[in-house]
């Protein structure tokens, strides 16, 4: 692995040259990711790698895209989606118009999962799903709604485990090795770049999902992100995090009520 001092130099140089601050990312994971791209691209000297990052903006972009962890799935953690289906959507259904925000949406699998749930609850027509990420490459994929066909078996199992009763293949059209999700789902999504390190609140939402993103941040940056969500959430709105994440260290208790043992909190005041 690269040395701690090399990682610090990388963080400082990226900030100086591009204004992007990796300083509040979790060090253990960042170190692994930077080491990975350094080795993957065949470098042996860290300072060669660093000057390429500094002087070649295209390469810098590649490095940022590769450092961020974009692994995602449809209906990942089916029990979470079951709660959304059975306990959250019925509450949101009382609203004339429903706004959702997926922060750190990666390639969009989670966004399409949510759109399917909204559709099955008869709410999609009056919903709008904002989906953001800092990585522009994953957003391009997400917008297209095209995913590998070989994943559909697992996704359709997840879908069923989350309480889905339709034929999952009704939601997409298969073509060679890929599937394209139906246009009526995509039509309700707005994708854009948004950086949780430095950007601000841009709307008010009834539900915010930010799953498996905060694990890459240190405590201070987690606090910043959670207060950003707090500002962006309507009263009685829901905040959903990944299965191992918590708002416990970031926000005054009493302001949010946790749904049983799920990683979902409702803003109560």
């Amino acid at each position, binding site marked *: *692995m690269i040395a*701690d001092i090399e990682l610090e130099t990388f963080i400082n140089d990226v900030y100086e040259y591009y204004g992007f601050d990796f300083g509040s990312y*979790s*060090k*253990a*994971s960042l*170190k*692994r*990711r930077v080491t990975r791209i350094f080795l993957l691209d065949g470098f042996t000297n860290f300072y060669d790698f660093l000057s390429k990052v500094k002087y070649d903006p295209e390469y810098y972009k590649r490095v940022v895209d590769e450092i961020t*962890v974009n*692994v995602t799935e449809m209906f990942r*953690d*089916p*029990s979470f989606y079951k709660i959304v289906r059975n306990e959250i959507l019925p509450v949101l259904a009382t609203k004339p118009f429903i706004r959702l925000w997926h922060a750190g949406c990666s390639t969009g699998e989670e966004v399409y999962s949510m759109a399917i749930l909204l559709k099955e609850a008869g709410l999609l027509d009056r919903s709008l799903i904002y989906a953001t990420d800092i990585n522009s490459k994953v957003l391009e994929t997400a917008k297209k709604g095209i995913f590998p066909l070989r994943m559909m078996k697992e996704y359709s199992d997840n879908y069923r485990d989350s309480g889905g009763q339709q034929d999952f293949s009704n939601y997409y059209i298969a073509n060679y090795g890929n599937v394209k999700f139906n246009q009526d789902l995509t039509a309700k999504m707005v994708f854009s770049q948004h950086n949780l390190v430095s950007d601000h609140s841009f709307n008010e939402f009834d539900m915010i999902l930010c799953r*498996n993103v*905060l*694990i*890459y941040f*240190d*405590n201070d940056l*987690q606090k910043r992100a959670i207060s950003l969500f707090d500002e962006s959430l309507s009263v009685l709105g829901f905040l959903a995090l*990944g*299965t*191992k*994440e*918590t708002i416990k*260290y970031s926000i005054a208790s009493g302001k949010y009520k946790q749904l049983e043992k799920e990683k979902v909190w409702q803003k109560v005041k």
Partner: protein
Amino acid sequence: MAESKVISDCKVVIIGGSAGSLHALMDILPAIPRIDSFALVIVLHRRGGDDQTLEGLIKIKTKIPVRIIEDKVSFLPGFLYVAPSNYHLLFENNDTLALDTSEKVNYSRPSIDVSFESAAEVYGKNLVGILLSGSNADGTEGIKAIQKAGGTIIIQDPASAEMPFMPNNAILNTTPDYILNTQEILNFILSINN
């Protein structure tokens, strides 16, 4: 059994294993009364999903208090930690644990290599790495990293392992400090920092 070199400055013992390692652990864990001066971490290959059966199983077999791992939980001596399913487990240099959902390594998440390498970065010579039974090559790179960082490495004797491939692979590619059966591993753990 090899003559124990006395380990007196151990902060962390990390155990990795795959197929067949649960039995080995069940021979070892119940006989450890307490671990005051170091933390014990267990990284086993497990099924995906948010599954807590392994934590449950371990909890009923050990007297050591088990702390459930969540993101950035504090990492303290005296406790046992189990790497959760579907995440890689990493070590921060301020005695907290971090999780990562990046690509599987050796078809595994959690991967033993990933956790061992990360622990080696932070705990170096204060680390003891133990690799148990398994039928995949995970663990070998991690064992190498621990050794390079000055830590102590122990491999389960393949003859006593249900699935000898994983320990064999590590033995072929490293020079372990000890090759021990489960009873000897237990005695070793009991001798740490004493």
